[in-house]
């Protein structure tokens, strides 16, 4: 599902965010990216959606060479992805339902299908009865669930999440993690950057640790591995 070959990213300022990264993530995997602040986790995530471009090396998403895509092909790469951020990134002037529906409207889905599917995913994330609420009327955990619903509403093959529980308390984080587990069980591959030790240790999924832009550990059924 995701392959990186000798992937390096040097930012314009000279920061070597990633150096010679080689990974192979298979369909259906659930992968945690861990490592100290500034290690390069967010960079890793942004490369997948081609929000930023590699300096050297290659990256393949579902067999597609991401760096070879023309600008007008990038939207179709992103339709294969579901993206979740730490800060939810919802539109505050739209209801939960509209926020999720937005992701379908902008890829030109017929309205009837939008209604059915949005209802379905809101139920999946446990917000079946909150569709008419605005983000301002919801807790952080609820907002993040709306964001997850938006990320998965178009049935992505790969869900990438950058510290999705970074702003949430442990209990709420656990609920969010359960939703990701459910999505993973339904077939989506998940790559999540996180500092959440409890969660990583509890989940016992594949863990890739990055330090100073290099992979220092890659374990199946791994643990967080850093002291807090």
């Amino acid at each position, binding site marked *: 599902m995701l392959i990186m070959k000798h992937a390096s990213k040097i930012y314009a300022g000279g920061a070597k965010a990633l150096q010679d990264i080689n990974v192979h993530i298979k369909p259906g995997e659930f992968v945690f990216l861990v490592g100290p602040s500034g290690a390069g986790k967010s960079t890793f995530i942004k490369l997948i959606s081609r929000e930023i471009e590699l300096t050297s090396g290659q990256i393949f998403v579902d067999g597609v060479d991401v760096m070879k895509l023309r600008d007008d092909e990038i*939207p179709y*790469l992103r339709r294969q992805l579901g993206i979740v951020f730490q800060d939810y990134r919802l539109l505050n002037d739209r209801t939960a339902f509209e926020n999720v529906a937005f992701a379908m409207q902008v890829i*030109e889905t017929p309205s009837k299908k939008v209604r059915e599917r949005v209802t379905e995913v809101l139920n999946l994330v446990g917000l079946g009865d909150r569709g008419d609420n605005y983000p301002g009327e919801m807790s952080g955990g609820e907002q993040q669930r709306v964001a997850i619903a938006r990320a998965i509403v178009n049935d992505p093959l790969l869900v990438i999440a950058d510290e999705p529980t970074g702003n949430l308390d442990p209990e709420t984080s656990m609920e969010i993690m359960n939703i990701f587990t459910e999505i993973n069980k339904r077939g989506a591959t998940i790559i999540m950057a996180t500092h959440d030790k409890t969660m990583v240790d509890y989940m016992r999924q594949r863990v890739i640790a990055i330090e100073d832009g290099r992979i220092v550990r890659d374990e199946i059924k791994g643990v967080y591995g850093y002291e807090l």
Partner: protein
Amino acid sequence: MSFSTKWYYLRETFKSLKRNSLMSIASVSTVALSILVLGLFLTMVLNVNNLAQYLENQVQVTVYMEDSATAVQRRQTEQQLKIMPGVMEVKGVTKEQALANFKKRLREQQKLLDALGEENPFPYSFEIKVDKPERIQQIVPKIEQMPGVETAKFGQEVVEHIFQLTRILRIGGILLIVMLAIATLFIISNTIRLTVFARRREVSIMKYVGATNWFIRWPFLLEGMIMGFVGALVAAVSLFKIYDAVQEKIYATLAFFPLLPSWPFMGYLCAGLVAVGTIIGAAGSGISLRKFLDV
């Protein structure tokens, strides 16, 4: 493009126009003003052109007879005129015909006709066509010497002056039009820039979920086009009304002034202006989208 998508574009466009209503109104007003000035200008140029052509076709001399001239004198004058070098055609116009022509030109300006009362102020005259404009200078003094002739009038000089005027108007006009177009482009692109700025969060989310670049651009383009269209429409309607009012005023005082009739002239002009406004609107937002919407 599906129906849902078109509907989406329209909704987004109008939402955005409403959200930025102050700037939208400012843009529409600027477009309206610019297009109105442009329209007034074109109206003037086209009318002056028309006037010059009208006068040029009148490269004829009108010989007015004294009221005291007898029928015999008139016949003698006619013979003399006919044998003058360069004279192609001589046509006698009686007092009655002159009055009738005047009435026809005035059309519905009944008040003016009433002011004339029962009197017929028009003298007997001859209309002379000559082979070339230069001939007029030679023959007019001679004609004025003839017995029974009051004056001989012609319009050549005026015609030349008017043609000169149209040339100046045209050059000045092109400069003015370019400046107005730039100002209009600037204000529209600025408004769209603000719109893009106000919606940058939406745009970034659209990009994350895989909206195509054109899908993102369309509502902004539509917004610019609608502002251009509405502004130009306001200008066109105003121009139409102004022209009608001016026409009425001019006919009330200068009955002979050959203005272009408002239909179909104004129809074509207004349609053209509305098209220009819409195109400027689209171009204005195009500039902003290229510069500020990094899709």
